[in-house]
Structure formats: C-alpha cells, structure tokens
C-alpha cells in the first residue's frame, strides 16, 4: 500500500537517486571507497597501426573484484593484458598512458617484479607438464622465495587458498594433467597465488569449465578478494553479476561505463550498456 508520504506535489521523475536514503548498494559503494590498488590512466594501445584501446581510464579498488565485460574484440582482454604487461611479449605493439600499482607507474618498473605482484590466469588451464607440487613451487623458486623447508608449506597454503587442497593433497607428485579441467584451472590459480600477488588478473577463467567447476572458481574469487585485488574478464554476464563489486563495459576499444555491478545490471546509465547486457546489442 502506498504510504501517505507519497502525497506530494514534487515531481518524483526528476529525482536524483544519489541524494536518496542510502540503500544496500550504496552501503556497498561506501565500502569501496578505499584508495585504488591500481589505476589505468588514458591508455591507448596499438597492434601495429591498429588502435585497439582508446583513452581508457579505470581504477581498481583494493580488495575488490572488478569485472570487464563487452563483445568479442572490444578490447577488454587487451586492456587486461596491459595490466601486467603481458602484451609486451607481442611484436609491434605500443602503449600510451600510465598504469600505476600503489601509485607507481608499472611501465617503468622491472617486468619480472611486476608480474610477481600482478598474477594472471588464462582462459584455458595451462599447467606445466610437471607434478602438482612442482607447478606450485615453480614461481616461488624462480622468484627466490624458497627458504629451507618452506616448499611444502607454500604448496599447501596455495592449494588451500585455491580450494584444491582436499582434492590434491594425496597426489601432489602426480602429473598436473591427471586433474580434471576445473581442478587444473584451480591449480593455475594456486600457482599464481604461490608468489603472493597483490593483484590477480583472470581472462575468462571459466569459459572452458562446466557449471560445477565454474561455481567453485566463483566461490573461490569471492573468498580471495580478502587477500588480493581481482580483475576478471568474462563473457558470462551472470558471472560478472555474481562475483564482481564493480563492472566495466567495453565497446570498440572504449570503456563505455564503469560502475557498481548492482547499478550496471539494474539501471545502467548508458544505452550501449543496456543494449549489450539485455542482449539487444547490434
């Protein structure tokens, strides 16, 4: 029933919702006001003469999950891969702009150190042709993080963080290929976590997984954000809606809109975003 409060001559259609009584999503936003862990400013990126990213600026809040969505070829993966400079491994590419981690420009830093601090998980599980144990310990070993006797400790901790310990603890010396696809992807996450990254980048990490394995990865991400800042590229919009605190929509190399996930999926401000998430795009 309508309350007497609604009896007013004020035009409610002109109301600016930002001034309304705080809602649960506003409370969530307040929780997100910590200083950003990473910041990309005015990023332009070129594959040869093709400009793939156009003046993209985006901040990633500390200990939050940011989802990047958009149609194929929109630049979201290209953008993600710039965040730990993986794109530098490609020939004839060029980046303009600034990407900072804790305020320092990562484009000026030692790339090995940057990739230790900013881990990455790819679309298809890509374990090394080694045992489960050796997959985990590879990163700490090449980064000089192994101390006498702490290898087993790192392996257990990493597998626990990736929710894989119970399933893998009795076969640590078996080949990583013996694991299922979903387990292999969690192994890759455990491998990335083994070097204690501050930021974890995931490029469509569940696209090759079944719904049960996907649900495990999503549960994992929600728990992991307490320990690191997460950026995930996904084609699965329901996944973005389920796991992300904020969501950015890319189209034709541009960041069209970035806002709280709740707002993006309930009332996006840009028509392009609405058309894409409701399936009317194109």
């Amino acid at each position, binding site marked *: *029933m*309508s*309350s007497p*409060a*609604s*009896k*007013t*001559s*004020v*035009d*409610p*259609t*002109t*109301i*600016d*919702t*930002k*001034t*309304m*009584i705080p*809602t649960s999503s506003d409370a969530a936003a307040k929780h997100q006001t910590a200083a950003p862990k990473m910041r990309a400013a005015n990023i332009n990126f070129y594959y040869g003469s093709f400009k793939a990213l156009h003046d993209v600026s985006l901040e990633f809040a500390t200990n939050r999950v940011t989802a990047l969505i958009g149609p194929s070829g929109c630049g979201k993966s290209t953008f993600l891969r710039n965040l730990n400079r993986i794109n530098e491994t490609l020939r004839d590419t060029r980046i303009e702009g600034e990407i900072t981690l804790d305020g320092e420009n990562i484009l000026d830093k030692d790339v090995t150190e940057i990739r230790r601090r900013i881990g990455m998980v790819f679309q298809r599980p890509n374990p090394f042709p080694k045992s489960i144990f050796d997959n985990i310990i590879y990163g700490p070993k090449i980064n000089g993080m192994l101390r006498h006797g702490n290898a087993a400790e790192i392996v257990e901790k990493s597998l626990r963080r990736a929710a894989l310990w119970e399933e893998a603890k009795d076969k640590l010396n078996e080949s990583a290929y013996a694991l299922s696809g979903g387990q292999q992807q969690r192994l890759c996450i455990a491998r990335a976590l083994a070097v204690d990254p501050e930021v974890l980048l995931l490029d469509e990490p569940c696209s090759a997984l079944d719904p049960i394995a996907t649900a495990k990865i999503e549960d994992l991400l929600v728990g992991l954000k307490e320990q690191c800042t997460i950026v995930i590229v996904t084609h699965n*919009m*329901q996944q973005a*809606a389920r796991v992300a605190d904020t969501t950015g929509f890319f189209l034709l190399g541009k960041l069209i809109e970035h806002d709280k996930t709740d707002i993006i*999926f*309930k*009332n*996006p401000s840009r028509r392009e*975003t*609405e058309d894409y*998430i*409701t*399936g009317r795009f194109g």
Partner: protein
Amino acid sequence: MRPFEQDINALNEALQEMGALVAQSVHRSVLSLVEKNEDYAHQVLRDEARINQFEIQIDDLATSIIAREQPVAGDMRFVVVAIKINTDLERMGDLAASIVERSLASLRQPQLNVEVNFTDMANLVESMVLTSLDAFVKRDAVLARGILTSDDGIDKLRNQINCQMIELMKKDPSTVERALDYILIARRLERVADHATNIAEDIIFMVKGIDVRHRDRAELAAASQS
C-alpha cells in the same frame, strides 16, 4: 523476434488485458452502486474469476522469464514490476467484487434518507485506475507521477462520507447497518485508489529506475532540487 522478446510481449499484453478487465470491473462496481444496477454487479462477480486466472497466468509467465532468461536492467525492472502490478490488479478486482457485494446488500434494504455522494469519489478512483493503466501502456513516468498527487483528494472524499455516516448513525441508530455498508464501500474505493498509486510508483521505477515509495515530502523536495 527472439523468444525472450516474445515472452516479454506476451507478459505485457496479458497485463494490459487484465488491467482493462479490472478497470471495467471497478467501473461496473461504481455503476452498480451509483445507479443501483444489479446486472453490473453480477457481471463484476463473474469477471472476478477471469481476473484470478490472469493473475496465475501472469505470475507463471514472469517466473518463467526469470528462470530462463535472467533479465537485467530495463527488462528486469519490467518483469519485477509486472509481478507487483499483477498483485495490485488482482486485489483491485477483489475490491470491486467486495463493493458490489455491499452494493447488492444495500439494495435489499430501505434507502437512507440522505444523499450520499459516491460519484465524485468514484470518478476520481476510476480516473486513477485508468491513468495508471495508460501510464503503464505508454511507459510514461510523468503520467504516473500525476496519480501520486490524486491520493489526497480520495482521502478527503472518503472522510466526508465517513463523517456523514457517523452523524447519521448518531441521530438514528436504526441506520447503523446501512451506514456501515456505505463506510465500507468508501473504504474499498479508497483501497482501489491505493493500489492505483502503487502501480504508479512501480511504473516510475520501471521507467526511471527510481524508487519513490515511502518518501516524505521533505525528502522528495531535497532530492528533486539537487
């Protein structure tokens, strides 16, 4: 047209059809009262079953869309609002039936010796119902907003009838049963207007994504000035 769009269209059409039937029932309930017409009253009672069927059909359609399509943004707001409007319309149908039951009861009793003005209240209620349905069809938040301001007038007219009946009962206790019928009819008309107001609030949410429920005058004024 994609299956999703077909489902959304089907939901929209079912709501409009149900809305038209409910508006007709409200209109006939008022006529049965004002014109003392029993035929209209019986038609309202017959149509209530159809309205109830619409309620079930619309809920089923909406839940299917949610389960299969997981709508978001404007589509999500439409489906959520469709479920709420469905409930409001069904309650309006119940209230129309309840009005004619009272109206039929009053027709079987001696008339009161006073003129009870239901016409103004009934006209305003009908106007609110029709405007809310029009706003829904046109997706017009400004039209919906006009309904929110009409509610004041309904309260005033209902209070007039209440006061008139209370005075009558004080003067002549033999009128209590008939006067109570009229008070209850006025109460039901007011409730129909409340549901029309709910629909208007839902339409504003559907169109603008703004929740205007339970806001007092000061809050709305502050919000609209920023």
